[in-house]
């Protein structure tokens, strides 16, 4: 049985992440991980005419670098699983129109990175695909104009707000041995503890992250000490202490090895409020940074819990609270396999 408990998938020993590609905007390039990203744009428009095209370019670049590293072409890929934050996941749709890989659109807001990776690994493990590309993207300006205000509008944001990462990440999953294997994945439940402030998504998402991490640990019968890092997607400076507190109440102590992608991607002195957010946040940090750490042996086992605020501006105006979700994936270093 590949199912552990109610909602956790245990993959066979031969599901690997073969390659990954990342592309980011200017703020992310200047951040502490900047040098690790494959494609870096110094300008938010990414040499395109409008914001939506810029985001599309980022996703195409991420997939391009990923395929180039794996020395594969679009035709070699069975399925393309992708999503983004925009209505009808337009970025993914238009990228799929271009690359002509059979496509499944995925939406999990900022948790899309791990959602698509988990589904991709399940397809490969189940024998339904040889090679799958899992990708997602976000762009600060497309997100601002869809979820908040026009980019040039002078509204003041509070310190609890997060800053949408401009970036895209793509990963190739297959049976082809490599030094990083996808171990297990937990699909989260939608959790809503009544937070209504779209400028405080960290507080809204922390319970979902705590629930998924606790479920994953229990199902896989592991403890936080079994992981070098437990990484959350974009809880930022506000949500990170909350998730630690919530897990601590359940007797799980992640304070030693917890990191948050939203806090890793920017320097503390960059003006990003409480930290980074968006699909691109967990995607570029996981695929650009953490994966390298695993390959080069500085980490041997990590749990990435990508968090998503399933926010909709219309629902916010109708006074609904923010439903949230988190999906967790274990990535493990495989010894003795060269890539």
């Amino acid at each position, binding site marked *: 049985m590949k199912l552990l408990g109610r909602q956790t998938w245990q993959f066979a020993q031969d599901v690997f992440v073969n390659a990954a590609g990342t592309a980011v905007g200017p703020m992310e390039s200047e951040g502490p991980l900047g040098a690790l990203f494959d494609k870096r744009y110094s300008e938010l428009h990414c040499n395109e*005419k*409008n*914001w*939506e095209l810029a985001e599309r370019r980022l996703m195409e670049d991420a997939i391009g670098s990923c395929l180039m590293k794996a020395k594969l072409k679009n035709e070699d890929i069975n399925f393309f699983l992708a999503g983004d934050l925009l209505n009808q996941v337009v970025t993914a749709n238009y990228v799929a129109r271009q690359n002509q890989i059979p496509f499944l659109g995925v939406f999990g807001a900022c948790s899309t990175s791990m959602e698509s990776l988990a589904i991709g690994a399940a397809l490969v493990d189940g024998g339904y695909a040889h090679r799958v590309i899992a990708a997602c993207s976000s762009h600060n300006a497309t997100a601002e*104009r869809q979820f908040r*205000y*026009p*980019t*040039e*509008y*002078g*509204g*003041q*944001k*509070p*310190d*609890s707000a997060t800053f949408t990462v401009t970036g895209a990440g793509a990963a190739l999953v297959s049976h082809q041995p490599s030094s990083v294997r996808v171990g297990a994945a937990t699909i989260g439940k939608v*959790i*809503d*503890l*009544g*937070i209504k402030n779209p400028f*405080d998504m960290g*507080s809204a998402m*922390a*319970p979902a992250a705590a629930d998924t991490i606790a479920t994953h640990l229990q199902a896989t019968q592991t403890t936080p000490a079994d992981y070098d890092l437990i990484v959350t997607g974009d809880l930022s*400076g*506000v949500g990170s*202490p*909350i998730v630690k*507190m919530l897990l601590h109440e359940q007797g799980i102590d992640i304070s030693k090895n917890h990191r948050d992608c939203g806090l890793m991607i920017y320097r503390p002195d960059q003006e990003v409020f*409480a930290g980074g957010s968006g699909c691109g946040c967990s995607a570029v940090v996981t695929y650009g940074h953490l994966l390298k750490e695993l390959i080069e042996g500085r980490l041997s086992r990590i749990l990435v819990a990508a968090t998503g605020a399933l926010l909709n501006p219309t629902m916010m105006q109708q006074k609904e*609270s923010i439903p949230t979700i988190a999906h967790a994936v274990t990535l493990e270093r495989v010894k003795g396999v060269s890539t």
Partner: protein
Amino acid sequence: MATKEQQQAYAEKIKPLQPKPPYFINCLKAFVVGGFICVIGEALQKFYMTYFNFTTENVGNPTSATLILIAALLTGIGVYDKIGQFAGAGSAVPVTGFANAVTSAALEHRSEGIVLGVATNLFKIAGAVIVFGAVAAYVFGMIRYAFKILL
């Protein structure tokens, strides 16, 4: 679905971990920037009254038009949103904030064309001010005029 009690308990629990807005600093910034914009307005009023023969009655017209032009330009070159993040209500409450709301919405939707993008979205944010202003003026005007006739 979480119950009301669970929601309240969570809100209570995370309260100490949530950043509080720096009330005093924010108010100070709003005061200084808002006051400064008004000082520019005052200078413009004196200028138009001295050199263009405007009166106290109608000097508001060229003054606000000039302020609107400045704010629209600052929005166009991507500066007003930075001022707004710094000053909060200090740059939102003066008429320049109205101009920023109009211009930023128009500018943002330029990618959807001039008619459906720019023109349709021009009053997307600022329109609420005109709607409420007109409705309020109508209602108060009716009441005040009715009183005037009756008394």
